[in-house]
């Protein structure tokens, strides 16, 4: 009889096998849990950023947005708004709000880029939402089509932001801000998050490619030469009429008075 088969029939074989199995699984688990130790450090990095963000959030934002970003009577919930919304609102200085006026105004950002990133990471960790982008990741120069962008802009944006992106009035003191000098990433983030009165333009409504076209057109509009002379604010006939009366007729009445004086 071979030694192995006699051992198999031994009565201690069962318990030994159980112990060996447990040992193997335990070791495997140990090795397996030891393996992602490199990954753990990354997670720890994010969680540090998240915890930093959480700390900043509790100090600077929670009085309005709630301790768990669940929102309150004066501020919306931030669960699911994603890092794009935070990067836009905090990065352009709109948040925290200076006062409870109709709409958060763009101003000098209160948080530096790193703090903004921490806040964004914290809010993103609450629930999935649109992620923030960088100017470098937006390849609008290569992938955008300016003429198409202009058409999309006039169809979707001009009714509030004016034909040349100069901004316009909304109801009750709200307004669509001027888009001149706005960073490409902020335009992109505004489109995917729909800040304040702005509707959200999902990738189904306007594809990322089309968004890049809009950005390309806007960048061109930023640098548009004043072909016909002074631009008068690019807001249409209101300033034209004002100039026509004040400078046009003003100069002519001045000339008429001068001519009438000459006759005396």
């Amino acid at each position: 009889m071979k030694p192995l088969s006699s051992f198999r029939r031994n009565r201690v074989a069962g318990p030994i096998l159980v112990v060996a199995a447990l040992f193997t699984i335990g070791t495997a688990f140990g090795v397996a849990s030891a393996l992602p130790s490199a990954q753990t450090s990354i997670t720890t990095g994010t969680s540090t950023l998240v915890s930093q963000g959480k700390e900043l959030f509790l100090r600077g934002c929670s009085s309005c947005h709630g301790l768990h970003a669940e929102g309150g009577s004066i501020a919306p919930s931030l669960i699911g708004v994603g890092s794009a919304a935070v990067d836009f609102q905090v990065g352009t200085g709109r948040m925290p709000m200076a006062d409870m006026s109709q709409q958060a105004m763009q101003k000098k950002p209160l948080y530096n880029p790193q703090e903004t990133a921490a806040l964004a990471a914290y809010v993103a960790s609450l629930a999935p939402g649109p992620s923030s982008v960088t100017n470098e990741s937006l390849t609008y120069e290569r992938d955008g089509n300016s003429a198409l962008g202009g058409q999309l802009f006039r169809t979707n944006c001009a009714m509030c932001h004016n034909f040349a992106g100069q901004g316009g009035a909304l109801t009750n003191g709200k307004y669509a801000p001027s888009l001149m000098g706005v960073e490409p990433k902020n335009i992109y983030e505004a489109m995917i998050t729909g800040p304040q009165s702005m509707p959200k333009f999902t990738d189904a409504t306007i594809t990322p490619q089309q968004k890049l076209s809009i950005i390309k057109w806007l960048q061109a509009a930023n640098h548009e030469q004043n072909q016909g002379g002074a631009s008068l604010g690019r807001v249409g006939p209101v300033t034209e009429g004002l100039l026509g009366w004040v400078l046009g007729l003003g100069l002519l009445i001045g000339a008429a008075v001068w001519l009438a004086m000459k006759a005396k």
Partner: protein
Amino acid sequence: MKTSQRAAGATANYVDERTGAAKWLKKNLTKVFPDHWSFMLGEVALYSFIILLLTGTFLTFWFDPSQREVIYNGSYMPLSGLHMSAAYDSTLRLSFDVRGGLLMRQIHHWSALIFMSAIVAHLFRVFFTGAFRKPREFNWLIGVGLLTFGIVEGFLGYSLPDDLLSGTGIRIAEAILQAIPVVGSYLSFFAFGGAFPGTAFIPRIFIVHVLLLPGLFLALITIHLMLVWYQKHTQYPGPGRTEKNVVGYPLMPVYMAKAGGFFFVVFGVTAFLGAVASINPIWLVGPYTPGQISAGSQPDWYMGWLDGLVRAAPPIETHAFGHTISWNILIPGLILPGILFTGMALYPFIESWFTGDKREHHLLDRPRNAPNRTALGVTSIVFILITIVNGGNDIIATHFHLTINGIMWFTRIGLFVIPPIAFVITKRVCLSLQRSDRDLVLHGRETGRLVMMPNGEMVEVHEPISDAKKWTLTQHQRPEALPAPLPESATVGLKGKLRARMNRAHATQIPAPTLTDLKELGEGHH
């Protein structure tokens, strides 16, 4: 005689023998016109019209009034490859690919704005000085006609390039047309040759813009000027100026040189604006598509009041017998402008009715001496200004950090409250100015020199004003209150009472200094 003189004489003689022009010219070249800067406002309008004809003709060489769809491949890259109408495409080419085209377009548009503002300024000069009184009522009516056609002509020009802004304007015009009860939609279909926007509208308004209305302008301006010629120009009061004479300078050479020079001043100012200030940059606005609209879409200023009225209207509609009546468009867009323009056209007849004044007037009123009329004029200016402010409410809201709703409510209430206040204030100011005139005549000019009398009293020395000035300040005729001389039957009934009341309001005057006043003061100027 030099050969050149002999040649000129022979030519003149040749023409005269065949036309008899010499006699006519001799009479008319020496015609005298009074001189004042405010008489040149109408001239600004006339010269702007000539500039509009010249630049407009240039523009027609390249403009293609068609709504045929084309693909743009001109030199303005941001619109490259887009589908657009031939009208918009040709305006782009005119702006970017025709030498001097953009300058001509801009001069044309600035000239149109100045044309309209000069007409309005001229109208108010005529109104405030009472120049519309007998025998000039017809010329007032022609002027109102020119203003009305000017608004239409300007709007059509604004609509021709078929850019996003002009298409929006046409859309609003269509809405106003449709707001006419019962026949509105039929009229709209007739005007557009079918549904909006169709392909017929731009070719149609092009012909109206470049042929029909300019022809009408030429005819009306000719009659307007012929009447000025025939009735002679009014003059401001002054020593030696009466209802029967005209004091001024002859047409040849003074006004030939002056008016000729002024034409070039007007052309110069318009060309200057066209060269330095962008107007209607259609390439930024983009081609018209019914699905698009821009924030801050406004008409040119002379339509701004109409837009402001429509923007102020609360959304009221009635549905009756299968028809919708949009009061929010019908009242501010058609009924109110109709009342305003009818009232303006009829004003000379209304004033003559309640003052009972049927005399001819060639001497102008100083505005302060007709307080009621001046107050009415200021009231209408204030009314129109409020509506224009509301027409630009979105631009004002964004640039002055106001709320658009606030401006709208300001307009809704202000339109009823502010003009009456302006009326009262203006009337009081006019009467105060009359008092000041009376004081000036009776007591002379304050010199600012203080003299101490032997008893220690301090007095300011007044200097008498010249007799000529005294004449100017006291010559005007006081309107006599109508009710007294009229038979009682003329002042009874609602109409009679209204007439009497308006007459009394119009007759409010500070009594002019009389000879007795002067004698009482004697030499005792203080």
